């Protein structure tokens, strides 16, 4: 137990901050994913074949390629791409992107592909009459989406989004390969310095179980909130 003590003698505080980092990366990635889903869901539902193709390309490629490969692409290619863009604007210095940003972008794009599918499914399962009724009532496009479609869609999407959240949370363990100090990386460091990998990796597993358990409980509450009236 002294291995987990807070302060200089143990790894308790380090693992605590690493857990916070995992939560921060997961939440950021989830929001990056929502942003991508917001762009690609309309593309997938569009009437135009070309736009469909773009949307389908995104979700198919990201869901068909291992997460680790996407992370390597961002890790090795991220700063190169940014420097290329910067060079167009006449900036030639070396730019290094923070591991947090690379990680949450990579995981965000992955979780965005799953979120896109969830939103698409949810919108498609809303009754057509709802769209028509909103139109007939003369509600503008903005109001139609935010006041009529979105609340109904969220109710349908939350159970599946909770799956996406679980996937995202577990995927953050993979960005430990980029050196970002989250649970997995911290356990790796601790295991290396104390030569006690069994204990630290098992503890990491417990931390992840704790996170998934707590988030499940919270999401269940949300689910109840959004399905009131049904």
């Amino acid at each position, binding site marked *: 137990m002294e291995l987990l003590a807070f302060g200089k003698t143990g790894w308790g505080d380090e693992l605590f901050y690493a857990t916070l980092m995992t939560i921060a990366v997961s939440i950021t990635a989830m929001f990056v994913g929502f942003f991508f889903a917001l762009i690609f869901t309309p593309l997938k539902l569009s009437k135009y074949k070309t736009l469909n193709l773009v949307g389908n390309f995104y979700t198919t490629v990201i869901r068909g390629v*291992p997460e680790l490969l996407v992370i390597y692409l961002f890790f090795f290619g991220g700063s190169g791409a940014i420097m290329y863009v910067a060079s167009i604007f006449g900036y030639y210095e070396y730019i290094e992107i923070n591991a947090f940003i690379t990680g949450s972008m990579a995981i965000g794009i992955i979780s965005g592909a799953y979120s896109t599918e969830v939103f698409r499914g949810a919108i498609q399962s809303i009754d057509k009459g709802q769209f028509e009724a909103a139109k007939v009532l003369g509600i503008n496009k903005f109001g139609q989406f935010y006041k009529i479609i979105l609340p109904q869609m969220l109710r349908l999407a939350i159970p599946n989004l909770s799956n996406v959240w*679980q996937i995202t949370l577990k995927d953050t363990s993979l960005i430990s390969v980029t050196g970002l100090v989250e649970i997995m990386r911290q356990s790796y460091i601790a295991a290396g310095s104390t030569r006690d990998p069994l204990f630290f990796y098992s503890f990491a597993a417990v931390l992840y179980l704790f996170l998934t358990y707590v988030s499940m409980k919270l999401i269940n509450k949300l689910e109840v909130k959004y399905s009131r009236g049904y």
Partner: protein
Amino acid sequence: MDFDLMITSLPKLLGATVVTLKLLSASLFLGLFLGLFFAILRLNKNIFINKFAYGYSYIFRGTPLLVQIFIIYFGLGQIEYLRTTFLWAILKEPYWCAIIAFTLNTGAYTSEILRSAFQTIKPGIVEAGKSLGISNKIIFYKIQIPIAIRQSLPAYGNEIILMMKGTSLASTVTLMDLTGVAKYIISTTFKPIEVFIVAGGIYLFMTFIIHNVIKYLEKKYSFQQ
């Protein structure tokens, strides 16, 4: 775009695909039996057996696959006793450690898929079997299992694809699978985009094949509603 690199790296990456496919097929094969075993335990009425099977699937579905591989590969070697047994011959090889981790992981997901498939079988089917005088054992093996397998095909197809992506984690325990070789080429040439296109293309091709095989099987074994 460096097309020469893409062409020269293709044979290396295809060679590594063999490792990926070996890992995938071994862990899916073993995982299917493990999953079936735990699905049957889940349906058991004894609360302890039931909870044990639930705990197994909960733990393996609630933690990242990376943690599971690391515990097995780095962690288990620490137990002195294990080093003296015959198991050590298996556990010191990263290849077998990866297969054990993948098997346990896919077993957990498969057990959930099969359990829900068993639970959706209409009781009337089992009753019909009983009234025909078929023994419980034969009802289970010849009636319930085939129906459950058909029910779980779509979900199991997803699991195969997820597992295929999961095998990429073997590269973290020094195995040179498709992702491992891709990472090696990227880190020596610093051409991430080219390598990503080739390696990603191979993965997508495998996803495409799996997807279509499952679709074909679903059609073949679809029963008339």
